[in-house]
């Protein structure tokens, strides 16, 4: 009986090492049709629906509901023929007879954590090359990613035309002198907003055209930097600047959303980085108003119900939020343990319900192509702040969009970023 794997590689978020199986839409032995929803998984902060790619019968389930599976793992199989009753593999046994599944069983062990296991050297080389560790298979003990794996991944990348980072992959062997790679293609730095993390860009990045290399960093107090909150916008800029310097990045296109927009402006004002262009989505720092209830609610929410209600404020149309988003966001906050950091940063960045920093001058002093994008239905920072944009900046006001264009309109977001980056040659 021929079987075909159901896997998650294409649906995986850019930064995800693992996905959570939320629900199977069929039981082993059930018939499935090409295009049918077959399993829902959670990636980053969104539920992704995986459809059957052919007609057949669901034969095996290797990862049951509630289990984490590495990106690329075989979640189950579709058989060409109806499996005999009782022949379907028992649920939740990874060590199935199928060699493909067995191979994935070992990768499950090694990748099930939220963090890629990599040597310090491999980590440094990957960061310098803008390579996402979750896309690299580790060949060391316990699946540890070593230098040789990074070398192989970079060599493969240079072989693959159309890859997002093709322009950079010229000389993997010379990575010890890392900064050279960053200079070849000026990278585009994506900076997320308050309460999010770098995965907020995951829908946008795949839509960017080839040749645009992105680096997304977690803000202090967020994501992987949960343990290191910052107290003001200057400290945020300082931290980002330090990390870019450590990565050998000397010039960059800046893209920032909300607090990340303010951080981009502060980073430009800081002057250590050569800024090529600036694209801001609903940036902070252009006026005193901020929805303090939203900020506080986001930082304090401990239940899915509470968070869902605040997240609804964030978007123009609540239907724009992927199913399971609140659940995944809450899980992320619990995992990084940054609730305290968020509350502390909310307090110092937005004292008395006011934006505690003014970056209108920093914006006015930019000498590079600049674009501001605001959803007209933004209920977190009013779109009226866009009126403070200097005359040289392009301003886009989006109908029907709230505070997060990167989630509500990823294709348009990608297009506007690409056009800004391209406009400076």
């Amino acid at each position: 009986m021929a079987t075909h794997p159901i896997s998650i590689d294409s649906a995986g978020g850019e930064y995800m090492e693992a996905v959570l199986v939320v629900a199977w839409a069929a039981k082993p032995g059930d018939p499935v049709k090409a295009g049918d929803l077959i399993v829902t998984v959670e990636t980053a902060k969104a539920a992704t629906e995986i459809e059957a790619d052919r007609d057949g019968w669901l034969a095996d389930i290797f990862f049951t509901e509630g289990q984490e599976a590495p990106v690329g793992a075989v979640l189950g199989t579709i058989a060409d023929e109806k499996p005999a009753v009782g022949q379907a593999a028992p649920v939740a046994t990874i060590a199935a007879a199928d060699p493909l599944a067995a191979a994935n069983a070992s990768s499950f062990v090694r990748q099930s954590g939220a963090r890629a296991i990599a040597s310090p050297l491999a980590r440094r080389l990957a960061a310098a090359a803008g390579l996402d560790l979750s896309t690299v298979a580790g060949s060391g003990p316990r699946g540890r990613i070593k230098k040789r794996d990074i070398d192989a991944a970079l060599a493969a990348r240079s072989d693959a035309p159309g890859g997002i980072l093709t322009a950079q992959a010229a000389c993997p062997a010379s990575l010890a002198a890392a900064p050279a790679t960053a200079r070849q293609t000026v990278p585009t730095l994506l900076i997320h907003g308050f309460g999010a993390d770098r995965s907020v860009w995951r829908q946008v990045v795949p839509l960017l055209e080839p040749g645009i290399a992105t680096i997304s960093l977690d803000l202090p107090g967020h994501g992987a930097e949960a343990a290191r909150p910052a107290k003001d916008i200057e400290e945020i800029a300082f931290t980002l600047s330090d990390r870019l310097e450590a990565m050998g990045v000397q010039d960059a296109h800046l893209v920032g959303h909300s607090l990340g927009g303010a951080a981009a402006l502060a980073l430009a004002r800081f002057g250590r980085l050569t800024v090529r262009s600036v694209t801001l989505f609903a940036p902070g720092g252009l006026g005193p108003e901020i929805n303090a209830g939203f900020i506080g609610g986001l930082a304090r929410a401990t239940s899915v119900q509470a968070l869902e209600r605040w997240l609804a404020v964030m978007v123009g149309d609540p239907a724009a939020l992927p199913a399971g988003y609140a659940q995944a966001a809450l899980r992320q906050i619990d995992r990084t343990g940054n609730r305290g950091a968020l509350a502390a940063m909310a307090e110092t960045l937005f004292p008395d319900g006011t934006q505690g920093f003014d970056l209108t001058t920093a914006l006015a002093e930019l000498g590079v192509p600049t674009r501001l994008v605001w959803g007209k239905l933004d209920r977190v920072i009013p779109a009226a702040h866009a009126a403070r944009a200097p005359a040289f900046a392009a301003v886009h006001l989006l109908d029907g969009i709230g505070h997060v264009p990167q989630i509500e309109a990823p294709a348009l977001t990608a297009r506007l970023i690409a056009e800004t980056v391209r406009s400076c040659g």
Partner: protein
Amino acid sequence: MAMMRYAEALNAALREEMQADPSVFLFGEDIGRYGGVFKATKGLMEEFGEKRVRDTPISEQALTAMAVTAAMTGTRPVLEIMYADFMPLTLDALVNQASIYNYVWNGQVKMPFVLRTQGGGGAGAGAQHSKALDSMVAHIPGIKVVAPSTPADAKGMLKAAIRDSQPVVFLEHKLLYNTRGEVPEGDVTVPLGKAGILREGSDISIFATSKMVVEASKAADLLAMDGVSAEIVDLRSLRPLDIDAIVASIAKTHHAVVVNEGWRFCGYAAELSATIMDHAFDELDAPVARVTLPDMPIPYSEPLETAMLPSAEKIRAAALKTLK
């Protein structure tokens, strides 16, 4: 250059320093008439007399205090403690006197003495005469600790130690005394605080001390047959440690094995491992591996002792595991 045994190189260093500086004198158990149990002081009593080469009773604690006071009053004593296993008896003088007087008396006191001793296993000397207690003395700020592995370094570093104004613990190894090597003739010193690159390599760095350098060199030969190019760094100065040399080597190979004949827990290899992570974390492509003595007394039985001691084969295995 002259071909010399390690013990002869020490003897030459002592003789030359005693000839050059009348304030240098030697004392210890059986070093005079008997010439030292490992013959490092052979012939020196005949040449320099009983005042400058003194046989003493077995009393390590008193001897070390004597070295401290003699050094304070303007001489350059060289004390021999016959077995490193009895270093604990010297510790009070080292920890509470030698290492701190320069500090507590605001630099008015110099402490130019050398404490020579030998440790290590492999000679069937049993649990009381086989230990390498390097970390016990290397732990003390204000004391230099060196452990040359070759005859050339034995001579050059002993001369440098005698001329140093700080207390120096000079660690020898009972199985090194009969090793031979080229030794530069004349007044050549080897500065304390510098590591030696015994062999260059590109795949893995093996950092070793004292006789373990010999084992590491044999391991490098074995590894060459495995297709692995190992760099051997001789950490002949345990304190001060040549951190620059360590970092430079790891920046080249990205893999490190540290080898010390002392016990593992709180041992010198643990210090090396932590130092590497402090200074070269981002260069590491694998965790630092430690090859040490297991945390047990050393058995008298030869097969058991052999099984316990760090060896070329164990270093090779650790290197291959690190490179996986």
